[in-house]
């Protein structure tokens, strides 16, 4: 969906028709089928979907970290006019972390328990930027920790001495160490308590505000994305079914899946009978002839099962793939 972004900034990342398959002896699993997504400079874009929809695969593809048997079958990932998928491994390795960095899922649990934080952040600085002197590394580390709201004394601590939220922010600090233009954050808050979640989300916001780094947040938490993201893309069964500015999406969601996801958020303000719908995500091996959501959709029309809807702009900056949203 390469429609005009809600903001008028230049496009930083443009994923076009991304197709990722996992090869199995029983046929290819289509993890992503035709994903179109763009992130503008300084924008926070949320990629939401439930487990198995392919959002992590899409994110990993941007960094070309898809492991076999996964394979990027088709598509282009444009950053600054270059297609990342056409680069050779050495070029890609240079761009990784420098232009785009990643805060992977469960990052806080993958901090080396035997090294102090200063050593781990220093490792990033030394490897990629060749920063040599201890004083320089120390200064940069303190600055990075300050940017994520952590006191400088954290540098001399070990990971087990920090709380979950602090560890996650250390991972964010490592991600911004080389001044990337884009950070991909995969489920940055899912294992954290509510109060800490807000702190980490606020940290991501601060980084965007102060450093102008764009962030692609991948999550299944709709409420979080409502508060954090500028634009939202909803993914289902390997396809983006709707994307719009956050306010627009929550106020005028038109794809049935988006509406049901929003209705399924339990409210703390009033009691209401929660929406629920049965069925499962379709078999990722099959390519259904019609809309991927048709088997679970309560508003399905006759044409939905036979013809797959193409993405269409329903409002300025609001794109949906649904026969009902025309």
């Amino acid at each position, binding site marked *: 969906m390469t429609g005009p972004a809600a903001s008028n900034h230049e496009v930083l990342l443009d994923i076009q028709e991304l197709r990722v398959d996992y090869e199995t002896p029983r046929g290819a699993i289509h993890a992503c089928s035709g994903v179109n997504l763009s992130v503008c400079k300084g924008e926070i874009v949320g990629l939401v979907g439930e487990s198995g929809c392919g959002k992590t695969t899409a994110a990993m593809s941007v960094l070309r970290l898809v492991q076999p048997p996964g394979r990027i079958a088709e598509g282009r990932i444009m950053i600054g006019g270059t297609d990342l998928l056409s680069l050779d491994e050495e070029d890609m390795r240079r761009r990784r972390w420098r232009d785009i960095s990643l805060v992977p899922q469960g990052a806080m649990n993958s901090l080396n328990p035997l090294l102090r934080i200063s050593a781990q952040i220093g490792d990033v600085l030394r490897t990629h930027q060749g920063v040599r002197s201890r004083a320089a590394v120390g200064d940069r580390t303190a600055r990075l920790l300050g940017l994520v709201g952590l006191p400088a004394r954290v540098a001399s601590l070990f990971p087990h001495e920090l709380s979950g939220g602090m560890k996650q922010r250390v991972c964010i600090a490592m991600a911004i160490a080389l001044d990337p233009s884009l950070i991909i954050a995969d489920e940055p808050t899912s294992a954290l308590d509510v*109060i*800490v979640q807000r702190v980490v*989300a606020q940290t991501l916001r601060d980084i965007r505000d102060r450093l102008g780094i764009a962030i692609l947040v991948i999550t299944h938490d709709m409420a979080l994305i*409502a508060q954090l993201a500028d634009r939202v893309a909803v993914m289902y069964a390997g396809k983006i079914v709707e994307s719009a500015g956050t306010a627009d999406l*929550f106020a005028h969601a038109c794809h049935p899946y988006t509406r049901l996801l929003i209705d399924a958020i339990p409210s703390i303000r009033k009691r209401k009978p*929660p929406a*629920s719908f*049965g069925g499962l995500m379709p078999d990722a091996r099959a390519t259904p002839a019609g809309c991927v959501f048709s088997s679970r959709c309560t508003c399905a029309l006759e044409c939905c099962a036979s013809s797959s809807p193409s993405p269409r702009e329903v409002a300025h900056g609001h794109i949906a793939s649904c026969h009902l949203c025309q």
Partner: protein
Amino acid sequence: MSQELLKINHATKAYGSGLFSSRGQVVVLNDFNGSFPAGPARITTVAGESGSGKTTLAHAVLGFIRLTSGSITFRGTDIASLRGGAYREYRRSVQAVFQDPYEVYNPFYKVKHMLDMAVRNFRLAPAPGAAGEIIEKALEAVGLRGGEVLDHFPHQLSGGQRQRLMMARAFLLKPSIIIADEPVSMIDASLRSMVLDTMMTLRDQHRISFLYITHDLSTAYQVGDDLIVLYRGSIMEQGRTTDVIDNPKHPYVKDLIEAIPVPDPSVAWNPGRPIPEDTGTAGKPETGCPYCSRCSQRMDCCSTKAPPLLAIDGNGHRAACFLYGEMASPATAPV
């Protein structure tokens, strides 16, 4: 009989006590009191973040761990002393649904093994052929069909299906109470409501009470009748769910509710004041209120003496905070 069905008295669990001193002891559950009277079925929610002791409570009630002090009584008898028929009766009346809908199934067997085991061990089938019917009825109550799910291995079903199957198994035994330990946290959002709906159906139509343990206050608000909020093993506030969430009294509960993101982009997610980090049990105060180090309204007395649960109103709404009656005598009537 007016006997309490399940009563938890001053339940305390501590780990790592030295032989000669109690220094370095980690208290994961501190003086928890609660009860399920034999009356209309209710869903009681115990809410808390990680490390609050809620899972410890669930395991203690189910008899998986022994309490350091205090007791849990079932129909007046301490569960630690139940034997034989009385033990079996306890197991039948108090069932559980756990958080991980995959781990609770033995990967070696099809899912019906779990249901068959329950039917067999509790002798629920009066005749050999009746087991199938009983199982089918239980599945109906949770919205599943036997033909669709029974003959599958666990990995072939979705998280929502597995979790509802768990509930079917619990329902099969016609328990009085089901302990639901984070039943929806590992399930997709779109399937969550079905599981929560099932809980409410079981309460309304089959008179089964629930002890619903969760970290998510939003779902607690949707399904719970009563709410107890735990922090670091101690009860911070308790009362009717609507009272506690619409009108929170304890500073921790207020902070918690404020921190929940509102799914409406037009409502600002008030960053509020920065709350000091919870650095785990290191530096945990041995005396005083557990929330003292992070509380915006702490007073001098808070760090020296742990506040008892003080009554806010006559409806059972109580908060453990000196703001509501300094040093006043705690309400002694059980909830």
